[in-house]
């Protein structure tokens, strides 16, 4: 249900909290393709205060990467289109910013780290060249100083022998080193917001831990805000303060890491937690969330999770729940169980959630 016009107008006029670096509201990004329209992001709201960290969690295809690309305005139009919504970043609405301006924001104020370090660097240039290019674009310095900055930022991300590394080509570096180069590039212009899209998915486990540690350390040292996109609950648990869980283009639950992971208020989050293999479950079949992500061309009429939800009833099939506040503005769940209508069924869910958390926690501890 879209909000009435007056309400939208009111929200546009209201004073923005200067403490909020990024405020995404009612964002809808659709892709018009041959078979119809894919509503990849279908009404996403979240806010990120300056210097804080937020994890955007969800399975493949839930729209988390598209959300990030929309913030950067990197969606190809056509087929993509930002249908609705606002992205307030540091006092400006990025959705209406002219191309010229958005280019200064990209890399300069919002930097992004991509999933694939193996292919995110241009094979024909030295890594020094590539970092220096970003510096030259945004800081307006000469070749020599840009290269010095490149060396400095490589040093800052723990690359040994940065003076020699800047002269090397990407194919001469390992995956972990390349991801460090990507991070150095992202940080070289001291951005206010760092978006990391699955920064560790393509790396092996030991390197994953190092890179996460590095991102965390740099985030704390430089005070940049971090939007971490991942499908890995363990990664968010270790890295960020707050979580937004996405499913089929909408946020289904948000709150602090502790709240969401230790006291889930949405059956999808509960399902994710109970599918973590744990100690108690040894020898038993792994539990999974039954069913598959809905077909993007034929979304369920009511709650998008309803076809897979073990707690769903008629209301869920016919009506879509809102993202309701649970006591605080930044603790929300998109589930009828958390509304008066679901009061009777709530204890059953709470018990299942408690069990899932208990199993998951013991799983993490092993």
């Amino acid at each position: 249900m879209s909000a009435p016009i007056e309400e939208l107008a009111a929200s546009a006029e209201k004073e923005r909290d200067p403490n909020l670096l990024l405020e995404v509201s009612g964002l809808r990004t659709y892709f018009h393709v041959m078979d119809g329209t894919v509503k990849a992001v279908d009404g996403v709201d979240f806010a990120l205060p300056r210097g804080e960290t937020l994890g955007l969690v969800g399975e493949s295809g839930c729209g988390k990467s598209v959300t990030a690309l929309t913030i950067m305005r990197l969606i190809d139009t056509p087929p993509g289109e930002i249908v609705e919504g606002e992205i307030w970043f540091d006092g400006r609405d990025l959705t209406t910013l002219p191309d010229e301006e958005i280019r200064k924001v990209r890399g300069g104020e919002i930097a992004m780290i991509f999933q694939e370090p193996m292919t995110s660097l241009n094979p024909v240039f030295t890594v020094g060249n590539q970092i220096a290019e970003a510096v030259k674009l945004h800081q307006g310095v000469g070749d020599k100083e840009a290269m010095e900055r490149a060396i400095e930022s490589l040093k800052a991300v723990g690359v040994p022998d940065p003076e020699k590394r800047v002269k090397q080509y990407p194919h001469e570096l390992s995956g972990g080193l390349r991801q460090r180069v990507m991070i150095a590039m992202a940080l070289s212009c001291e951005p206010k917001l760092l978006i990391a899209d699955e920064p560790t998915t393509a790396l092996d486990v030991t390197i994953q831990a190092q890179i996460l540690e590095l991102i965390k350390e740099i985030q704390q040292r430089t005070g940049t805000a971090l939007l971490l996109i991942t499908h890995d609950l363990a990664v968010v648990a270790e890295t960020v303060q707050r979580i937004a869980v996405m499913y089929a283009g909408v946020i289904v639950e948000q709150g602090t890491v502790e709240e969401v992971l230790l006291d889930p208020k949405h059956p999808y989050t509960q399902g994710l937690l109970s599918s973590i293999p744990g100690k108690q479950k040894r020898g038993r079949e792994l539990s999974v969330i039954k069913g598959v992500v809905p077909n993007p061309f034929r979304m369920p009429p009511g709650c998008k999770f309803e076809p897979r939800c073990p707690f769903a009833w008629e209301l869920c099939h016919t009506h879509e729940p809102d993202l309701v506040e649970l006591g605080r503005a930044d603790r929300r769940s998109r589930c009828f169980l958390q509304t008066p209508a679901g009061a009777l069924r709530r204890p059953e869910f709470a018990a299942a959630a408690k069990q899932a958390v208990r199993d998951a926690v013991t799983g993490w501890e092993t």
Partner: protein
Amino acid sequence: MATEVEAVDVKRLTPAELEALELERPDYEIKLESLNQWQLAWRRFKKHRLAVVGTVLFLAMLAVGAFGPIFFPYDYSVVPTPDQIVYAGRPPSLAHPFGETGSLQRDVLALVVNGARLSLVIGVGAALVGAVLGAIVGGIAGYFGGRVDNILMRVVDIMLSLPLLFVILVASKFLGGGSWYTILVIFALFSWQGISRLVRSLFLSLRGQDFVDAARAAGVGDYRIVFRHILPNAVSPIIVATTLVVAIVIVEEAFVSFLGFGVDATQPTWGNVLSNSLTFIPVGNWWWPLFPGLAIVITILAINFMGDGLRDALDPRAKD
């Protein structure tokens, strides 16, 4: 071969000893020389024997075209006196190693050498202009896609569906053929289509690459993305295609000149030298068509070998 290596139990060493051991060990990774893709390509190219031979031949031919006319000058207006003329020409001799033509007693060597200059200028020039045109058109189509792509590629389709040789014949007739630069321009205008298709497909796949997204995310503008990030990655296939276009243009120029629609006889090209020899073949002076014909065959073969080697050497997926 086997060298004595003292076995050391690393676990028992003190940290200081370990460090000393580390220092003794050469730092392999940093000592590795850093080769860029051109150096790597050169390494692979050198291994391709035929390609090296082809390149040497082609460079030799270019040298002949560049410096030969200094040693074997040719002037159309110099006409022998009637008493010097032997109707059928003279076969190869020490004074004229490629023989002399019939009728005007031209030195065939001088014709071939001077012909090399124009044939190669037209071949290489038209291919280079065509490559630039093709890269621009294909690059725009591939990078921007959508309607721009559609319009440009339909133009290419139309041009490719024209019977090329007839169009060139007509064009050279109407644009006042005869001078070498008109011929060059005509060939340039008809040799970019293939390259533009190639460049378009390269750009289409390259613009979807992660590093292009990463560059855009770093705030790089369209112009720099096209020329600094995408084009350098597409250069190798463009080079290979261009060498092959050189060969095609040389053959086509010879063909067009042979039919009398190319460069006129005042300026020799391999094609028009061959063309003039036609009437004298029945008289049995084989040396007149043989040497310019050989020059064409050798050049085309050399270019094709070179192109083959370049394709292998510049293939980014090639492993040494």
